[in-house]
């Protein structure tokens, strides 16, 4: 349809799925659920019982008015442990994802805009990291060194970089060749300023989706580690750990395993859905024509 004198190659945009007027119900549900978990994070005092209190007499109970989600094999209240575990379940992936994306964005902008040896170094490192199975390495490193939660986060952060740096760097390179960046250079705008005021906003939508996707990955990876008994200390009311501890007695109290599993999946899905939606909104705001 464009009668342009010279064809301007315009890459066909992948159709976004969650487009539509107003807030879709899926997004509302996701936001609502994340809100609930946020309340648990800020106010662990909401827990009806002491999450660490062991009462062998109450073990293996199903749901009741005293224990809404029943108890685990040690007689601890599942709901209280769920609320108490929200902090590690949510804050750690959040911090991990924020760290991963912050570092990735910085590296991507540097490599994609400066090019030259900076790009060569960053890209090579990223290439090598990319072909390393992250979770596997985390299992080995954390396992062999006996390192704790902090080490798991650092290892996962490093191995979370390559995929994000690649995507973001490609986006930066595409934008860096566009006239608006070249115009800024011609005007004499300084390099750091071009990076901050032109490139970062331009890849903003991508950074946002990457962040939310990364939350999802972080939840999956961190909880997998704790499911294997790595990272979090024994006894902590971590959702992944709860599932590993309670799975053998699932038939006695289904909820002791299902509830943390459901919560994990719901947080991860919500982050994914919300990220996708924000991306669509931001993208459309800047969409031409």
């Amino acid at each position: 349809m464009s009668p342009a004198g010279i064809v301007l190659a315009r890459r066909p945009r992948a159709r976004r799925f969650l487009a539509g007027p107003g807030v879709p119900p899926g997004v509302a549900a996701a936001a609502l659920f994340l809100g609930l978990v946020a309340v648990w994070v800020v106010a662990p005092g909401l827990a009806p019982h002491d999450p660490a209190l062991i009462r062998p007499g109450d073990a293996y109970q199903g749901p009741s008015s005293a224990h809404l989600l029943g108890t685990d094999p040690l007689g601890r209240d599942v709901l209280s442990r769920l609320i108490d575990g929200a902090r590690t379940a949510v804050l750690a992936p959040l911090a991990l994802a924020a760290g991963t994306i912050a570092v990735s964005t910085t590296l991507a902008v540097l490599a994609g805009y400066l090019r030259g040896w900076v790009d060569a170094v960053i890209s090579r490192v990223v290439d090598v990291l990319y072909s390393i199975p992250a979770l596997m390495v985390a299992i080995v490193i954390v396992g062999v060194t006996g390192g704790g939660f902090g080490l798991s986060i650092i290892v996962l952060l490093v191995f979370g970089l390559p995929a994000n740096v690649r995507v973001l760097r490609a986006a930066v390179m595409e934008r860096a060749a566009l006239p608006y960046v070249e115009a800024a250079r011609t005007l004499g705008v300084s390099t750091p300023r071009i990076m901050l005021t032109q490139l970062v906003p331009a890849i903003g939508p991508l950074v946002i989706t990457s962040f939310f996707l990364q939350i999802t990955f972080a939840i999956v990876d961190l909880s997998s580690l704790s499911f294997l008994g790595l990272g979090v200390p024994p006894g902590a009311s971590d959702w992944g750990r709860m599932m590993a501890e309670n799975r053998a007695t699932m038939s006695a109290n289904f909820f002791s395993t299902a509830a943390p599993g459901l919560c994990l999946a719901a947080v991860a899905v919500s982050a994914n859905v919300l990220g996708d939606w924000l991306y669509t909104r931001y993208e459309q705001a800047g969409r031409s024509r």
Partner: protein
Amino acid sequence: MTSRISPTALVATGLSVRGVRGGAPVGLTSDVDIEVPAGEAVAIVGESGSGKSLTARALLSLLPRGLASSGTIRIGDRDVSLLDDAERRRLRGSELAFVMQDPFTMLNPLERCGSQVTAALRGPDGRRLRKAAARDEAVRRLAEVGIADPAVADRYPFELSGGMRQRVAIAAAIAENPAVLIADEPTTALDVTTQKEILDLLERLSRSHRMGLVLITHDLRVAFSVCTRIYVMYAGEIVEAGRPVDVRNRPRHPYTAGLLRTEPPLDRRVHRLARIPGAVPAPGARPAGCRFAPRCGWAEADCHDHHPALTVLHLDHQVRCRRADELTEQLRPSRTDEPPEPAVACAASDRALIRTRALRRTYGPRVAVAGADIEVHAGESVGLVGESGSGKTTLARMLVGLTRPSSGSVEVGGVDLASRHLSSADWAVVRSTAQMAFQDPYSTLNPHRTIGAALRDGLRLVGAEDIHRRTDELLERVGLSGDHARRMPAQLSGGERQRVAIARALARSPRVLVCDEIVSALDVSVQAHILNLLRDLQVRLGLSLVFITHDLAVARQVTDRIYVLKDGEIVEQGATGDVLDHPRHPYTQRLVASVPSPRPDPGTELERGKPA
């Protein structure tokens, strides 16, 4: 009267395309009637938003998802509208063929050209051709479109030039000897010289194969050069139809007349390019009366209230205008009467603002610019003209420091950009001497920043005091208003964005503005606005222009001197009028000759060629 006798290959009656926007049905095109005689070419001409491409898609039953068409289409003596989907599919390729705009995306990059050409062919037994037979057939078909080298059949598309790919695509499209070929802007992506070859090829094929050709184009010159009938579309409907001689010499619709006037002439520089105010209305926002009325200088109250019908004037000239009879004289192109503007006697100041010596740029083994000597003086407008790959853009980029020279010198405001060490004071001199505006209006502004933010970048760097007032001033200088500063680029039209891009460059108060193909992506009516603006700025601010373009007619309008580039070398230079009127270098001669010119009057052709 051969056109009367030729059997019609395709007739479309009342063809309309509808879509849904924001939940409500919207008419995109309405009641398009088209007749295509066998062996002849007709053109559908219009700017973007006219619905010409949708009409092509509707003819092929290849509308994008969510759009539907109505009306009748007859091919030969078959009514296509009565066929089901499978039968329509069988019709495509065998009866109706289609060629698209971009030769770089039309072919499958992973399949050899030969097998793409013969993919649709079946042997007499209804089976796919055997390998050897298919290759022979491919070679034969490629020869038909002017590719003599049989090895091309074994090449992949990415190994061929744009023109060659377009030929391969045409061969693939007409492999089954269809009755009608629909070509949607088939030459827009190509260089002028290649464009002419492809147009000639299409015309030749349509004659030799007795094939009706529907040429969709935005370029009236292209339409006049090959077609025997022109349909002008505006805002989803045909506003005028007729023989090219009539449409060109006696346009009866104000829009057609406007288009003809906004088209810059190649042979002379006009005082001021005519313009059409406003923009094409979007589907859904079209006026109830005449759709052109809000932009029409002759519109009366009735025009706004009543939607005019397409009426036959004489012969086969039709027009959709209530006042067609009264306006005959006013609409006649007055160009010949208009005095050509004398070339501005360039006050060649002694000192050049920009001077390059033996300027060279290579990319690995490829030479982009091979030793260019150019000068730009204060207040003059200099053109860099050439086809894609001629090095004109690389040269322009070196003038503003976006690309570093491999050797030679570029002095901008006395600073040599080729030297190794440039202080920030040197850069400040360069920045305030030369600034640049770019080609693509859709990427020239950051989609996530306001117009004001883009302009303030430059103003801050010159330490302007009252930045917000200066922003408003800049916008007004390029014909926009101060409240554009708060808008996002997505809210602006292509022409408005190019104005902002010019304003942004002016923020540093440069003495030279380098314009890289800044109008090539715009519709002609918008292009005229920008070209006039540039001429104003040149006069009012004493600004020098370096104008890069592939379009000689545009160069004629805005430049005083031109440099013609070919493969990185300047092959000819001089005053624009001299070079274009009396080209000396064979390449320049070829460039000038490739600009589409109207075909000879069908009357004379009839007498000479085909006795009735």
